[in-house]
């Protein structure tokens, strides 16, 4: 029995297919990541699961409640933090928290333990208007407001987009603590490196889920050997590598190229020799293990 389960959900906006037969299984008490680039359908999926949007086909349940039929029951047990800041900017920190606690039929006192750790950082500013807070503080307040009614599942739609590296790290630490409190967390992000912080993930692209599982299991399924090529004049090399037999794909990854090659047919030595023959003697070639981004590129290329 999964905590959140979606089966073959499809949703189109006119002729554009935002979601195409998406299935998802989230276990109780885990941090589950939906990882994909902008426009992949992450927000649409979140809006469907939080009962804000109807869909064309399929069905979905949250804690056993159908998202269409039992939407009222679902709304009592979920916390949702949309991608953009959406609290009342003209109400103070305290008033926002109080407001959201009250409309869930709860009170700040009743939910205080859940948010104490995060809210303690906001406490000095509790009289300040929400609109006057810094970006990081706004995010913490939004998280508090989503948690104050003690939801059993938290939906976070791109919570770390546009947040600096330190705040991002801090935010993921908070998620770990929320998870420790027994809350299931479904989080979406365009940053591949954040996949490692989730218990399990789904990779989503152009409305389709291209793979799901733990990060390790997805990496294990990577079918090729991966080589990293680095050197001084790196861009002309790209063209040569792509023409080679046995090379499946070649992408620029920062200052390096990641070259996916068929196992056993091409080795580090082969590549190095070919590069020397073409006058790129200064290039270094080494074997590397694939990351989640390599997996995403490989799976996306397969589609």
């Amino acid at each position, binding site marked *: 029995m999964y905590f959140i389960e979606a089966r073959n959900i499809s949703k189109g906006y006119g002729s554009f297919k935002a979601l195409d037969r998406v299935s998802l299984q989230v276990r109780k008490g885990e941090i589950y990541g939906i990882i994909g680039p902008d426009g992949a359908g992450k927000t649409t999926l979140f*809006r469907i699961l*939080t*009962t*804000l*949007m*109807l869909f064309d086909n399929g069905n979905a349940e949250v804690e056993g409640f159908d998202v269409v039929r039992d*939407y*009222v029951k679902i*709304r*009592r047990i*979920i916390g*949702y933090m*949309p991608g*953009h*800041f*959406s*609290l*009342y*900017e*003209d*109400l103070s920190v305290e*008033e926002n928290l109080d*407001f*959201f606690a*009250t*409309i*869930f*039929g709860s009170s700040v006192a009743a939910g205080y333990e859940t948010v104490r750790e995060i809210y303690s950082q906001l406490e000095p500013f509790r009289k300040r208007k929400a609109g006057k807070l810094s970006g990081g503080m706004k995010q913490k307040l939004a998280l508090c*407001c989503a948690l104050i009614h003690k939801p059993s599942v938290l939906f976070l739609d791109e919570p770390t987009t546009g947040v600096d590296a330190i705040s991002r790290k801090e935010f993921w630490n908070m998620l770990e603590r929320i998870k420790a409190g027994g809350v299931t967390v479904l989080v979406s992000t365009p940053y591949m490196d954040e996949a490692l912080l989730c218990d399990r993930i789904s990779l989503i692209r152009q409305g389709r889920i291209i793979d799901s599982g733990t990060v390790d299991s997805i990496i294990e399924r990577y079918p090729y050997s991966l080589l990293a090529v680095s050197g001084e004049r790196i861009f002309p090399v790209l063209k040569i590598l792509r023409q080679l037999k046995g090379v499946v794909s070649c992408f620029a990854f920062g200052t390096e190229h990641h070259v996916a090659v068929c196992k056993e047919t091409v080795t580090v030595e082969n590549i190095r020799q070919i590069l020397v023959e073409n006058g790129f003697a200064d290039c270094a070639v080494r074997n590397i293990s694939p990351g989640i981004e390599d997996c995403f590129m490989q799976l996306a290329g397969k589609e």
Partner: protein
Amino acid sequence: MVWIYLLEKEFKQFFRDPGLPKMLISFPLMMVLVFPFAVSMEVRNINLVVVDNSCSVTSERLIDKCVKSGYFRLVEKSSTPERAQYLMDINKADAILTISSDLEKQLAFGESLPVGIKVNTINGSKGSIAAGYLSNCISSFVAAENSGERLSAGNHIEVSTKFYYNKYMDYKVFMVPALIVIAITMITGFFPALNIVNEKEKGTIEQINVTPIRRSTFILCKLIPYWAVAFFILSSCLFIAWIVFGYTCAGSIFTLFVFTGLHIMVTAGLGLLISNYSDNAQQAMFMTWFFMMVFMLISGIFTPIASMPAWAQAITYLNPLRYYADAMRFVYLKGSTFFEVWYDALGLFLIGVAMMSWAILSYRKQE
């Protein structure tokens, strides 16, 4: 409990808004103290140029009578018609009165009137009113001259005018109820629409939608503060009009409140419709503008409906402002009871029901 909290939030936001509370005070003040003067249709200070060819005592008396009527300001006595025409061309004269040289003779023999009137009709209503005033002055002058000299006229008919329901034909009294109508329409129709659209635009409605709060509860709590404001404005307008001008409502104030309540139902429906069909404040503003302009121009507030062409009159039956303004004037000026203006109540009620049903049908709980 949740209700109280939602209302508390709305009132907090209302009073924290940089503009709204100021508007709450200045709106009734402006509506009663400033606008009745500004929108007056009375024409005064008409610039008059006289071409006096008679230069007699009688012509002097005629000019004097016109100026003393209070509507005219004598610019100059021109010697030639060309000079007078020149003054009109450079916009220094609104009306030219030409007195012929044989004025006294003509008066004595009672032949055709020996004067000519020329008016500037760049501003149509001002021109025609000026012509009306001027010919009134002249005919009463002629009548006075004649009655002084020839009392024998047996078939002499004197017409006197008496104004009912607005004894001194004071335009301000006439405008006070109409301006209340405009204020209430703005406050209860368009401000809540903008408020709801604002929550849409900022995304806060998203956060509300995932809560167990019913959307109808949420929206109703948004409307109620504006209703309170509307009744506050109605009361303060009536109060200021009484304190400052001494105007009182001829009918029952309770009836005014009943009609305001009916009208609020219409504007609430309209506001919800606008908010349903717009995603951002610009769209809402544009729609608001469109409806406001149309409603005001064909409401009978500024121009009488009876003088509109038949097709325009037909359109006014769809305009809620027509019924509300009509009822407010009848009750305020004439003292009509609710049952005497039942047709206005019916019109408002029908439009209100139609708007509300459309608003409820067009709004979906989930996208």
